[in-house]
């Protein structure tokens, strides 16, 4: 490990985010290298200053009281104890979908796992792309269940034309598409649904002509299937259960046999 490597890793080192081996390597280097030690000192001083300055904004009591009151006055389902007159309408729609928030909790890969291989990196990007699409409430740029609307939408936006199979008959209706960015290139993202579960399908021209079967893995609470066929790479991700996502992947693979025009 030279000084450059060390200085690049000083931040995760200082945050306690490195594995033990690298942590010790850096500790060792800092004991012997004045230049790197000086960098580390500067970083430490900044962090100490941030920690000691009164920068934290605590919630005002009035807000705390208001939220508690809102909660109490929210309409409850009249199943249990006495009912109250509904006041805070906003609470009334509570429960239900929860995709966005649930997805938000589960993203993020271990630092040590990142960049170990191109595929691992791609998995991470697929997960991040999926989470982003749910979080930003930006699942589709073109919202349509009609493949004849979605497919042409990509024309002029990509240098290839993705297959957009109609799987509504099998219980996986199309809900639209959007452009995303994966594997260092803009790619087509197709969005299907199974009940309330969004399924993202990322597809782009494969780097080689290999045909691969559907491979499946689970990452951070999501199920991922991926394969190559007819010159195209496919990555499918959802919080749908593995069984149904496998079924969906199988159907999609079946329908993606034709070479892209």
């Amino acid at each position: 490990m030279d000084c450059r490597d060390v200085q690049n890793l000083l931040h995760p080192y200082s945050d306690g985010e490195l594995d033990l081996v690298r942590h010790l390597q850096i500790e060792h280097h800092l004991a012997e290298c004045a230049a790197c030690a000086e960098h580390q000192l500067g970083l430490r001083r900044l962090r100490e200053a941030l920690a000691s300055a009164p920068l934290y904004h605590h919630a005002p009591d009035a807000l705390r009281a208001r939220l508690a009151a809102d909660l109490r006055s929210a309409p409850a389902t009249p199943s249990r104890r006495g009912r109250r007159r509904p006041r805070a309408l906003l609470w009334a729609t509570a429960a239900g979908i929860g995709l966005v928030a649930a997805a938000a909790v589960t993203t993020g890969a271990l630092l040590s796992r990142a960049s170990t291989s191109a595929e691992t990196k791609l998995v991470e990007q697929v997960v991040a792309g999926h989470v982003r699409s749910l979080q930003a409430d930006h699942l589709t740029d073109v919202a349509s269940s009609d493949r004849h609307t979605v497919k042409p939408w990509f024309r002029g936006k990509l240098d290839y034309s993705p297959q957009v199979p109609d799987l509504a008959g099998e219980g996986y209706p199309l809900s639209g598409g959007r452009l995303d960015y994966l594997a260092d290139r803009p790619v087509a993202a197709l969005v299907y649904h199974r009940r309330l579960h969004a399924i993202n399908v990322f597809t782009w021209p494969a780097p080689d002509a290999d045909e691969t079967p559907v491979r499946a893995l689970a990452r951070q609470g999501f199920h991922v299937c991926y394969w190559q066929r007819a010159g195209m790479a496919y990555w499918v991700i959802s919080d749908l259960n593995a069984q149904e996502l496998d079924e969906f992947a199988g159907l999609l693979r079946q329908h993606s046999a034709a070479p892209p025009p």
Partner: protein
Amino acid sequence: MRLNLDERGRFEHATLPHLDAAYNLARWLTRDDHAAEDVVQEAYFRAAKFFAGFRGGDGRTWLLAVVRRAAYDWLAKRRAWAAASFDEAVHDRGDDASNPESLVIRKADQQLLRQALEELSPEFREVTVLRELEGLSYQQIAAVVGVPVGTVMSRLSRARKQLRQRLAPCPGREE
């Protein structure tokens, strides 16, 4: 659909202990007291709406992701985004020009520090607030912000570099 009494209890238990964390993030992102309150209230409404999707676990991270989204919506609505966001290329001066020895932060400089943090672009400010003030791990920050852990790491180091650059060039300051 609504929260029944059971769910409401669970919801309070999962979210109210993190009100300070929610407000702190909202306040740093909006840089405005009243806006921060509005954002937190909106976030709690949304969180209640999505509560069925909360499968237990890290309630703070879950809530903060909702707060962050509400804060960005507020920023977008107020068109503050353009004003608040800095061009990274302009403000990140690349290599670390600051001399660490000159970076001595005393009590008197706390106002300077607060200002430097407020002047960071929102994506740099949020990772700094979540790491330095909230003490979240890279993985938790990644979950809140919705980016890969590697992005958290690089944003955090760039944010700190910018902070040091903003704080360093005060000539003639003695140890």
